[in-house]
Every structure is written in structure tokens, then in C-alpha cells.
């Protein structure tokens, strides 16, 4: 049983079917009390200062005592820096397996990638599908938690983010994660309703800031839609696993993401969108597409290093809420 680090959401069913433990390196990095130090470890090793903070964090989690046996790296469909991350990990002797989402969502290409991963980890489709059915139950429960967020208004933006983002690796222990979700949902069903006057959607990669959701709530607004996190949780409930990973919008072009976002804007009755972009990330360019295609006020905020929101970003968030009121 190996601990397999993943650089973003991958067909986690395959890792689990092979009897290994998936570890989302992003979650380990951002939950580390010394996340800033992890960025510095990578910079000391030679990572440029003007490169994404997440990539540096991921590198350090693996090389700096993360107890990771090998890394499954998504070389297409997530972050173009991952290729160099993989190479620098190989340089220090870490075994890596590449995984690529085909840009055009080609069914055969995606299936081939999954076949190769199944072969590399030494499992088979029957075992994978058994895990898929097990995970569908958990995914259904997380989808309910999401519904409680926007429809019953009893879940905070942060918890909505946390439980959905955790579906990339189910915290490495599906049963324990499911029990945690069960307990949370039970409490949320009878929790007091939030009464904020503004409902926000959060689009883009998960934030590197640790107080973003709290700050919005302090200012009388709540995030009731976490776009990419919801995609990580895959609430689609389809029988076919290849199809499930084709419905997953995040690794393919931006336009399918926009279709998904448009539906949720209407359904969740959003007042505004917060587009989070990571410093030095190619996704910053896509901001212009969102602004062109989405007919809703958008605030773009940029994060670099882990930690609290800076005064400038808070100022912009406050002004945005002011504008929406």
C-alpha cells in the first residue's frame, strides 16, 4: 500500500482500486501550519520567485518529509508547470507517473489514459468500477452538503469549499471521510440559516488565502457556489467512469466551464462572482473570457503566497460588495 501524491484531481477510483492511498498534495500543502516555509524550501532549491506558489508548495511537500512514495502528476489539463515539477521530483529520485486529460475531451484518448494508469498501478476495470460505485454514494452525500449551502442556507462558504475540495482524495480514507460528511450534514440540516444579503459564486482554482470565506461572511456576503471545488466532487452520478471524467469541466477548455457556471448562477441566485487567480498562472488570461461571457458583476482577486488576505485585496473585496449593494 503506497501513498501516492496527486497534483490535482485524477481518476482517484484507480488509485483506491489498486489498494493505494491517494494524497492530494495541494491539501497537505495548504493545511500545513508552515505553508509559507514550504514555498521557501522550493525557492531555496532553485524554484524561481515568479512561479506559482502552489507548485512550489507541492514540490516541498514531497521532498520535505511528506511521506510520499510516488507522485501521479497531471501534465495536461491542470497546470503547465507540473511538467517541470515532475522533472525536478525525478531529479531528486521520486518516482512519477504522468496523467493527461485530452484538451478536446476525446473519449478514446481519456480511456487510454485511464487504461495506462490501471496498468501502471496493477489493477483492473472491475475493481475500479466497484470503487466508483462506492464513491458515488459519498459523492451524493457531498452533493447534498452543497445543496444545503445554497438552498437551505445552513452551510458556510468555507465548509462548502472544504468538503468538496477534499473529494480529490477523500482525505485518503473514504470511510472516515464519509462518516465526517454524515455528521456534518446531520448538523447542517438543523443549523441556523445564514441571513447574509449578498450571495456570491467563487470561480477559479481554490484560493491560497485561508481567510477569504470568513472575510466575506464578516462583510455580510456568503459564497454559495464553489465552482472548481464542486467539479472536484463530481456530482454527476453517471454510470460510466470515462463519461464522469469527461463531464468534469476543469481540465478541458474554459467554455464548458462557463456553461456550467451560467447554470449555477441562475440556480443559486447569485449576486456576483469572485474569480480567483493565482499569481503567474496562465488562467489569469482566461479572466477576459469570463468577463466577456458572464453577464454578472465579477471581482478578480489574485493570490501569491499562502496566508491571510492582504489589505489591498480586502479593500477590493469590500468595494465589490459595496458596489453590489
Amino acid at each position, binding site marked *: 500500500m503506497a501513498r501516492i501524491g496527486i497534483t490535482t484531481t485524477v481518476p482517484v477510483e484507480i488509485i483506491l482500486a489498486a489498494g493505494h492511498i491517494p494524497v492530494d498534495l495541494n491539501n497537505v500543502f495548504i493545511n500545513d501550519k508552515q505553508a509559507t516555509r514550504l514555498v521557501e524550501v522550493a525557492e531555496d532549491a532553485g524554484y524561481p520567485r515568479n512561479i506559482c506558489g502552489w507548485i512550489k508548495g507541492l514540490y516541498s511537500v514531497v521532498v520535505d518529509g511528506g511521506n510520499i512514495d510516488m507522485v501521479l502528476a497531471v501534465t495536461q489539463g491542470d497546470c503547465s508547470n507540473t511538467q517541470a515539477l515532475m522533472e525536478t521530483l525525478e531529479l531528486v529520485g521520486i518516482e512519477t507517473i504522468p496523467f493527461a486529460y485530452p484538451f478536446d475531451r476525446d473519449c478514446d484518448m481519456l480511456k487510454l489514459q485511464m487504461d495506462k494508469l490501471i496498468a501502471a498501478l496493477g489493477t483492473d476495470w472491475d475493481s475500479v468500477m466497484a470503487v466508483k460505485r462506492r464513491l458515488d454514494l459519498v459523492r451524493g452525500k457531498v452533493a447534498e452538503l452543497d445543496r444545503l449551502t445554497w438552498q437551505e442556507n445552513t452551510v458556510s462558504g468555507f465548509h462548502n469549499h472544504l468538503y468538496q475540495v477534499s473529494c480529490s482524495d477523500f482525505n485518503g480514507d473514504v470511510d472516515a471521510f464519509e462518516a465526517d460528511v454524515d455528521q456534518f450534514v446531520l448538523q447542517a440540516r438543523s443549523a441556523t440559516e445564514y441571513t447574509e444579503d449578498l450571495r456570491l459564486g467563487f470561480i477559479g482554482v481554490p484560493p491560497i488565502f485561508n481567510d477569504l470565506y470568513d472575510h466575506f461572511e464578516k462583510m455580510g456576503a456568503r459564497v454559495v457556489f464553489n465552482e472548481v471545488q464542486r467539479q472536484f466532487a463530481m456530482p454527476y452520478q453517471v454510470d460510466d467512469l470515462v463519461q464522469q471524467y469527461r463531464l468534469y469541466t476543469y481540465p478541458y477548455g474554459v467554455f464548458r466551464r462557463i456553461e456550467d457556471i451560467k447554470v449555477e448562477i441562475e440556480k443559486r441566485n447569485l449576486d456576483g462572482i469572485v474569480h480567483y487567480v493565482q*499569481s503567474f498562472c496562465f488562467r489569469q488570461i482566461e479572466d477576459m473570457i469570463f468577463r466577456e461571457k458572464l453577464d454578472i*458583476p465579477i471581482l478578480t482577486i*489574485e493570490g*501569491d503566497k499562502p496566508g491571510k488576505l*492582504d*489589505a*489591498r485585496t*480586502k*479593500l*477590493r473585496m*469590500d*468595494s*465589490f460588495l*459595496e*458596489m453590489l449593494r
Partner: protein
Amino acid sequence: MFCGIDLGSRSVKLVIMDHNSVQRSEIFETVQFYRKYGSPTPEGLVVDFKAVGIGEISDVVATGYGRNTINIVGATVIAELKAHTVGAIWQTGLTNFTVLDLGGQDSKVIKVRNGKMVDFATNDKCAASTGRYLENMATVLGISLEELSSYQENPVELSATCAIFGESELIGRIVEGYSVPELSAGVNYTIFKRIKPMLTSLKSETVIFTGGVALGKAIGKIIESELGIQVIVPKYPQLNGAIGCAVHALGKRR
């Protein structure tokens, strides 16, 4: 009397207004202001208004960079972009325009329609295109900020808008033999190039140009000629945010 305070990154602007006009204004260097007149308490920052030397005031409204970090005891705090919007409306009487505020360390563009902010943009985490950049460039050229901001003809091509790396590029151009007016015009043009995308996406027929940088003439003229729009510099460009605060206080009282 109503008091508006704009806690900027480089300077603190304070105005005292009655119902019709600005009665008094002060500009302090930010660090000096906090040292001289402020004392931190568990409730927030207490400003010694007596020591500042302003008389009896009924309401204090504050805004600025420190909106979230500094909480002035006894003051209502409003969002900075709102303060600038309100200030610009009060100063010009207009309700449809774009505010361009170039301050000490940040730049803001606010689109206003029917007296309401409808969109905004601010500079990225970098002091390029701000007063700090101009100050550094003026120091390199050995001229005053006022002189620097008066040139717009025959600009030298400068690519770096970084407040730090811009210095070495400018020195390179000095060595190449360009004149001070050409170099200064180049500096002013880099400011324009930096803010052009923001001004274009939030365009109005009229731009109300505020902040310390608006005190210079060249940048406003460049914007007018390059974008074909009207640029208005109100009577108190640097005090616009503070005026917005005082007007807000006044509105609350009415």
C-alpha cells in the same frame, strides 16, 4: 462641521466641510500622522483630533488603505472606492464618468453610471503607474515632480514600468543622450500605457482624474489626445477621497 479622512499609503488627507464647501484641509505624511496623532488601543486607533488642530466636529468618516487594518475609534469607515465616487460626484456635479485615481502606491479606475459605481479595476500588486514611480524617476532625473509631470512631447521609449527597475532603464536612456523633456515625457507615457487597458475597459466620455498624480499636467493631456476623451481634474484632486468621506458624513446627518 464634518470631517473626512483618507488614510492613503503615502499621505493622510483630512478635510473639514460645512454643508456647502471645503473649509479646511490638511495633508500629512502617513507614518508621521500615525506617530504624532494616533495611539493604538484594543478598540482601534484613537486619533487625537485636538492635537491635529481641528475644532468642533460632529461626524468623522474615514476611508483608505487601512480600512480593514486600522479602525479609527469614533469614526464611520467607508470603502475607498465609494469615497472616491462620492467625492468625484460632489466636486464635478456629474453622474456619468470614469474616475481615474493615481495615488502614492496604487491606481484605481471606477466606472460610475447615474451616480453609482458599476465596475472598477485597480493596479496589480506593483507600484508602477503610481506616484511612487514618478517620485523615483524624478529623483533619477534630478528634477522636481512638478517639472517631470509637465512634459509630454517626443517621449523616449521606456518598457519597464516597475518603480525599481524603471530607474536602471531610465539611467540607460540618460547615457544614450536623451534630453530631460524627452525622458520625462517617456516616464509620463509609461504611466499612460499602464493604465490604458483599465481605462479602455471602463471607458466613459469623461474621465475625472484625481490623486496626487493628477496635479501634474502631462498625463491628463496624454489621456485626452490618445483616447479622445475629456479629462477633468477637479479643484481638489488629492483630497477627493477625503471629500467623499465628509460628504458621506453630511449625507448621513441630513
